[in-house]
């Protein structure tokens, strides 16, 4: 009986405590920078697309919600012809971000993606591409990679030595 009264008193004291509820639409919660929300495709500091259409994200995706088609431009740079993410399937696991070798695909702290029609949840490349480098400001894959493309020969990438002249190795 006494413990019941004590319980009632303690519950009453909760009237003066801080509310736990976050009044969501009026009051936004804090989301960590590494929060896994809406997926974007970033650009390198020069403004070119980072994605090299390697398909690793599509392979890593456990729900197969990423579809893309690789192609090459006149410089020999690979890029996706189309890049489609079906967000009605996406589980925001972040595996695509982990698989991406060029930091192109990134997850952002935004989750307000509600739509009235399911087909509006299919995002095309224009919807996914942003105008900045995202979480990795200085990174440019093509400047580091030793791949030869138009305007950049072998050995011209940063931190890369010029290729060895095979003829000089002859005995």
């Amino acid at each position, binding site marked *: 009986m006494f413990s019941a009264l004590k319980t009632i008193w303690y519950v009453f004291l909760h009237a003066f405590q801080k509310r736990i509820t976050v*009044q969501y639409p009026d009051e936004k919660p804090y989301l960590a920078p590494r929060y896994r929300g809406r997926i974007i495709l970033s650009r390198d500091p020069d403004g070119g697309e980072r994605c090299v259409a390697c398909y690793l994200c599509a392979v890593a995706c456990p729900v197969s919600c990423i579809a893309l088609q690789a192609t090459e431009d006149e410089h020999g740079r690979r890029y996706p012809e189309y890049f489609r993410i079906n967000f009605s399937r996406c589980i925001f696991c972040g595996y695509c971000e982990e698989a991406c070798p060029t930091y192109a695909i990134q997850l952002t702290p935004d989750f307000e993606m509600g739509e009235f029609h399911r087909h509006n949840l299919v995002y095309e490349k224009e919807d996914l591409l942003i105008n900045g480098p995202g979480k990795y400001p200085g990174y440019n894959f093509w400047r580091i990679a030793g791949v030869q493309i138009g305007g950049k020969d072998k050995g011209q990438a940063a931190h890369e030595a010029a290729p060895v002249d095979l003829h000089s190795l002859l005995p």
Partner: protein
Amino acid sequence: MTSPYPMASVLGILLVALTTAAGLIWLERRLLALWQDRYGPNRVGPFGLLQVVADGIKIFMKEDWIPPFADKPVFILAPAIIMVTVLMSFAVLPIAPGIIISDLNIGLLFILAMSSLAVYGVVLAGWSSNNKYALLGGLRAAAQMISYEVFMGLSLMGVVLLAGSFSLPAIVEAQQKIWFIVPQFLGFVLFLIAGLAEMRRTPFDLPEAESELVAGYHAEYSGMKFGMFFVGEYLGVILISAMMTVLFFGGWLGPVLPPIVWFLLKTFFFISFFILVRAALPRPRFDQLMSWGWKVMLPLALANLVVTGAVVLAWR
């Protein structure tokens, strides 16, 4: 001391009681939220007050479905019984001097009789639903209400002895010098517990016990029939709170403020207290409930009656 405008009193009390009962849904949700560090409904209208209207519209629009296996006439009658019996009790409730529908000289007995009849609503609802959970709920309700009514009546006899009358206005008038909570403290505690059990609210909501019986006797009800059970329950809360005010806390008596304000203040205090109890206490096991009622509360109520009787005899 009947009211000079009987029809006005009837309509006024009916209107106020029903509106308050509907409003209590909002009040209860807000208060429960308050004691659980939440906000509760605060979106619809100022402070979420229009939540009641939204809920009302919703419940009227809902499909009113009668299960094919149910006993149809009884199924329809059961929620009405609850509403009617509880509303009948309001007829003898003195709200302020002159604001009472009918000053019966056995007003207290009338309320006890009506609250006993309310059991029929619950039992018949459980029976006619033709569903084992509903029937179990009805059975529990019958057992619980019969055993708690016994000492509910007995705990009030102390008040009747002190006031020398069964009429509720006379009981209020008898508290001019001292509220009956002081000489009848044990009676008050007993009545509080019995009242909780009589209202079938947590911690004594074993007849509905969501976690064991789905929703007990109103498991099969939908739409406004379910709404009637709910309004009936909230009317019961108001009734028990008002009775505690009248019997133990001097009804409309109080300084400065007009009598009706005092009555409403005290009643709302007890309504809030009942909601607080709901927020705080868990539900006991059914056998604990029964043995508590018969082995502890009933002897205490009898002892209270005997001692009060002896003191009153010695005094005179």
